[in-house]
């Protein structure tokens, strides 16, 4: 099997209905606007911990997840808010999660978009990069063993391909011919490290032949191209023909997280991508000029997104903080409750007020 590097031409994917074509814009717009809301909340210090953006990468997340069926399962990474929304995660859940509320999907245990729901078909990531590749090999192995008509998709960044777990997982899935799609989101950087320091390969898609799997590469900022390439890989997996590595070329316009000032990015690079290659701008142009949608249709989506995010924010702000003792619940199935340590018997809360250190992660150079 060989890597085909040519991106499928994708301005008119005949398989998508007009509603679906608009829906793609809805998910991208929702992703971007929700993150913008999170920035506001972050500045108001209501977000606990770091804030990770996918600005400029909305097409790669949304278009790829859109190629899956409801019964399929994906595993998102930190730039895949859009993929999770497509899979049914709600803005309310995202907001509660970032604000560490007691009724957030992880009840305040995990950060940002680190959560999942097997019912809706997404499995939460952990921080350790690459780890989700073997896990998704196992998820898709179960589909194969049970003869289920289901497919899995796992995202990794350009940086995460350097981990041992990535290599072991993709190779395992390849050998087992698991119905898995591995999406490499090449956004140019891993934190401050450019792709040229991550791999000596010319393209990530070139790694596919080494694993004996198919490889596809697509313009990650063209949502229809992303959809088409991923759909092809999903169809391959569904047909029992094993793993495909899909490299999506995109660009991380914000820092690794909100605190990162991107001092390492060459002058003008970000502005160029923003001006010339914004995935939302590009898709609006396609919708208007090639697909015949009018301005009203676009404005309608934007209004709907705005209203949904406002409503979700109001509700999330009313959400309670976690009850301290909930931290003891659920390490094991049996026993369900970890014992409270002797020195804390009868104590409801460990401290009177909870210090909120500014920036748990990293710091701008001073």
């Amino acid at each position: 099997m060989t890597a085909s590097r040519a991106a499928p031409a994708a301005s008119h994917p005949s398989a998508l209905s007009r509603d679906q074509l608009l829906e793609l814009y809805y998910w991208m717009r929702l992703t971007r606007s929700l993150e913008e809301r999170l920035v506001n909340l972050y500045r108001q210090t209501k977000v606990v911990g770091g804030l990770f953006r996918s600005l400029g990468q909305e097409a790669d997340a949304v278009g790829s997840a859109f190629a899956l069926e409801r019964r399929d399962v994906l595993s998102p990474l930190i730039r895949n808010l859009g993929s999770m929304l497509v899979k049914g995660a709600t803005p309310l859940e995202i907001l509660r999660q970032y604000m560490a509320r007691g009724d957030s999907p992880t009840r305040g245990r995990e950060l940002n978009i680190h959560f999942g729901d097997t019912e809706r078909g997404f499995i939460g990531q952990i921080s350790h990069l690459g780890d989700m590749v073997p896990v998704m090999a196992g998820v898709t192995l179960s589909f194969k063993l049970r003869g289920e008509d289901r497919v899995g998709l796992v995202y990794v960044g350009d940086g995460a391909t350097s981990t041992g777990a990535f290599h072991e997982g993709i190779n395992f899935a390849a050998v087992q011919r698991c119905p898995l799609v591995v999406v490499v989101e090449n956004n140019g950087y891993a934190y401050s490290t450019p792709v040229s320091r991550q791999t000596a390969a010319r393209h990530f898609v070139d790694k596919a032949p080494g694993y004996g799997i198919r490889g596809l590469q697509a313009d990650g900022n063209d949502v229809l191209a992303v959809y088409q390439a991923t759909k092809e890989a999903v169809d391959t997996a569904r047909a029992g023909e094993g793993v495909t590595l899909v490299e999506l070329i995109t660009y991380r316009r914000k820092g690794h997280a909100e605190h990162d000032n991107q001092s390492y990015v060459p002058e003008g690079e970000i502005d160029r991508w923003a001006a010339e290659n914004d995935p939302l701008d590009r898709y609006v142009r396609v919708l208007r000029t090639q697909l015949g949608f009018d301005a009203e249709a676009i404005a309608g989506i934007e209004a709907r997104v705005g209203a949904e995010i406002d409503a979700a924010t109001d509700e999330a702000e009313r959400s309670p903080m976690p009850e301290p003792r909930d931290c003891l619940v659920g390490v094991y199935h049996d026993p369900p409750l970890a014992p409270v340590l002797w020195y804390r018997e009868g104590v409801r809360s460990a401290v009177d007020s909870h210090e909120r250190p500014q920036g748990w992660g990293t710091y701008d150079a001073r």
Partner: protein
Amino acid sequence: MTPAEAATGEITYLEAIREALFEEMERDPNVFCLGEDIGRYGGAFKVTNGLIDRFGENRVIDTPISEAAIVGAAAGAAHMGLRPVCEMQFIDFISCAYDMLTNYVATARYRAFLPCPMVVRGPSGGYVRGGPFHSQNPEAAFLHTPGLKIVYPATASDAKGLLKSAIRDEDCVLFFEHKYLYRRVKEAMPAGDHIVPIGKARIAREGRDLSIITYAATVWKALEAAEQLEREDGLSVEVLDLRSLLPMDDEAIVATVRRTNRVLVVHEDTETGGIAGEITARINDLAFEWLDAPVKRVAAHDVPLPYAPALEDFVLPQTSDIVRAARWLAAY
């Protein structure tokens, strides 16, 4: 040193680590650093800021996201006479190099007579709302591995002096840095080539009634508790900062037990399998007859560290816990 630092003479825990790296790289051309984003960017926490300007890309190497390769390559380079200092972007990712460290590095000298003088350092610890994968204290996982050394300083001058010792050590030293302390504690550095020997504890506060044995961020909580106990209960509390966990300073542990006869062991890591168990066993072996009360532990609850402030604060030991536990011990 920046002009501001020169004026007060005080530098932070983080700057002290950087100073140690600078001085050791200056002193010995075999010392080099490798890790993720440590070059031009200066590292996620800026610990290595400026090193690349002084020492260049060959001695400050930005690596792919490959912890096993970072540690494994450091071992190979160390065999050949270099002195690598590896940075884990967060110490939580040292787990990706666990195999390399425990199987390859730790056994190299014993099984193959291969020297492995290297350091693995990185930001550790909680109280920062980092959640389960940016808050870990994995020291106990390595305490059980003969062949590794472990240090975990609490003060800026110890951070500097211990890192310099670690780089000069003939074996692999795991150097845990507490990120809560990075910019919170400051100190003037002793003049000259400041070295703190590995394996020696430090009395952080002298006392007669009760001893708290601890290390890293909880040293500061213990000191806070000691002050409160003195003020409110008239108790004289000694605080022993272990600084080195492997080898452990048995002499200092026994000495404090003999002075106060009551011991509380405090650490931020989870209780079960934590280092407090090892310390307690040593006291039992070496100084049982000097005890007037059972050795008690204050450590984290046995759960993964959650992210929400109310949850994290409940899981981790707090100053008020140390006060409560110390009162119980004093009354025993």
